[in-house]
């Protein structure tokens, strides 16, 4: 009996195995080629440039050296860059998570009738370029901006609050830019969360805080991990919003790469910093996969 039933899939398997890889390769190849030519090769080239010795004025030599890295790690300014970037990355990610989590949870629970519309509203900021949104924040948060104007004319404050050209401005702008990405990732990772688990926990004696801590949070952990990874990477690599809202006074790895590559024309230095950023991303990815495994 068992032999008869099991013989069927065995007989079918070779046929499907012959047909399957061809289609699989045909579908995967275009993107694999693009990825190789436009990402893998440049990254290898970037790594090579980071070891090239340069003379003043950004002239590249044919000599390879570890000096670019040595310079970076011995300079207190670059250590400040790393800590600034990491603080921004962690801080922005945490605040974005706190802002987006209730939205995602609400969207997950709202009746399907409203869900699509509310979902579109949540991600609609993505329709406007983050450059334009950053300029919008400059208009709102500037010394003569809408926000300070309201506070001053209503007599709450006498002099404008410093909300731009500093780290606070960068935080505000970055969080707003990243909320849709965080919300999208969270919702994508909420698949396992069902109302019935909360009901089961309640029937076993868990109050609402315990239900959140012991049931909702662990079940949404994959979404949290994905959203945090994405926002961390985006906030560390973001360049336009810190540049504009930081007013040149907030120094980060991303802005330094730009300065070194475009203004100072020190490509090897820029490449070395880029490689360090890549390593930070690699570490973030490792943490992410551990978290996902842990909560699977």
């Amino acid at each position, binding site marked *: 009996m068992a032999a008869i039933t099991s013989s069927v899939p065995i007989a079918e398997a070779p046929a499907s195995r012959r047909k399957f890889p061809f289609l699989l390769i045909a579908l995967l190849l275009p993107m694999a080629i693009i990825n190789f030519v436009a990402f893998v090769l440049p990254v290898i080239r970037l790594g090579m440039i980071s070891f090239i010795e340069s003379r003043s004025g950004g002239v590249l030599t044919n000599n390879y050296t570890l000096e670019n890295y040595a310079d970076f790690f011995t300079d207190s300014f670059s250590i400040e860059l790393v800590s600034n970037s990491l603080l921004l990355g962690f801080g922005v990610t945490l605040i974005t998570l706190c802002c987006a989590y209730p939205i995602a949870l609400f969207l997950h629970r709202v009746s399907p009738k409203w869900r699509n519309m509310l979902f579109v509203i949540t991600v609609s900021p993505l329709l406007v370029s983050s450059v334009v949104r950053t300029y919008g924040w400059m208009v709102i948060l500037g010394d003569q901006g809408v926000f300070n104007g309201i506070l001053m004319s209503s007599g709450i404050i006498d002099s404008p609050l410093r909300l731009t050209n500093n780290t606070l401005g960068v935080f505000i702008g970055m969080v707003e830019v990243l909320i849709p990405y965080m919300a999208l990732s969270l919702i994508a990772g909420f698949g*396992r969360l*069902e109302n*019935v*688990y909360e*009901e*089961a*926990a*309640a*029937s*076993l*004696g*868990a*109050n609402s805080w*315990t239900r959140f801590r*012991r*049931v909702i949070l*662990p*079940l949404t*952990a994959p979404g949290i991990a994905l959203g945090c990874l994405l926002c961390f990477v985006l906030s560390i690599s973001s360049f336009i919003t810190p540049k504009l809202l930081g007013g040149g006074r907030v120094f980060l790895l991303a802005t330094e790469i730009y300065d070194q590559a475009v203004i100072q024309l020190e490509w090897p230095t820029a490449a070395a910093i880029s490689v360090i950023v890549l390593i930070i991303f690699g570490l973030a990815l490792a943490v992410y996969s551990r978290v996902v495994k842990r*909560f699977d």
Partner: protein
Amino acid sequence: MQTQELRQETPAAETNTGDQAFLKLKGITKRYGADYMAVDDLDIDVPKGKLLGLLGPSGCGKTTTLRMIAGLLDITRGKITIDGDDISHKPPHKRDIGLVFQNYALFPHMTVAQNVAFGLEMRGVGRTEARDRVEEALEMVRLPGYGERKPKEMSGGQQQRVALARALVIRPRLLLLDEPLSNLDAKLRDDMRIEIREIQQRLQITTVFVTHDQVEALTMCDLVGVMHRGKLAQLGTPEDIYERPEDLFVADFVGRTNILDGEIEALDRVRIGASVYPCNTRGLTAGKAKAAIRPHRISLTPSRDRSLVSMATNAAHGKVTRVTYIGDVVQYDIDIGGNTLTTEVHTASAGHSFQSGEKLLCEWKPQDMQVFGS
């Protein structure tokens, strides 16, 4: 006041003589919107240690009732007490009720042992005691040593048992089961039915069991409440429900039944087609009526003269229109002058087997025909 009520009820409910109502549902009502009554003025008393089955088609309000008892839904009106304790408006986590869901709802991120221990943890039970009680509960559901598995690594039946262990380990005052067997295959369902009943009786835990399956309700429960459109159609022992249905809905829903159109001619006489049959008309003396007869209560004999049949038996001549072999029974559809009777004959009781088109005589006892006014 309360004692007076009890005194009145005790003689009526034969099976629970001397038992006090442990779970009391008094006029509980759930209204949605302006006038949709999901559950309408339900009164049910369940004595301590008994298993109540709430039986009905989907949308009859049985699950809504269960969710109101569990506290997962607010009641619009009415009162729920457990052992005299009014829980009508307590939040679910303070009700001390064990709940088993239709899809088990085991926490997917926890192991089996963590699932079972969850309720103990909420009650602040110490680690060593909790470990012992979890193992004991898993042994009770015949899954000893399965504690380290994840729910997704287990079969449906095993998950079901874990859910039962998780609900029972907290030693709740009341156990609620929401269609617990409907996701299992037929063979497993039979086993689990017996197992759940056995555990329930061993622990003597008062239980409410929601099901749309009449076999489950009849075989497992001490009391069955048949629900229809938010109301309680009948509450009684399985035997009451099956043998003495109080209305047409119950007669039709519980077990297979022939429903025939007829007319009441006089007290205890109903006309169906051209013939008049003695039966119990429940005091009705006239008007249109529906008569219900169970297929297996009709006996079939080769056609013979009506006068040879005892006057105490109802009989009708008929012709076989269809023969369906089911295995344990053969089902004959018989045309008795305009109406079709479905009958069942056990294949083991050999007797006579009939062919399609064959003429025969259908006989049944007057008390096996229930007549309802319509």
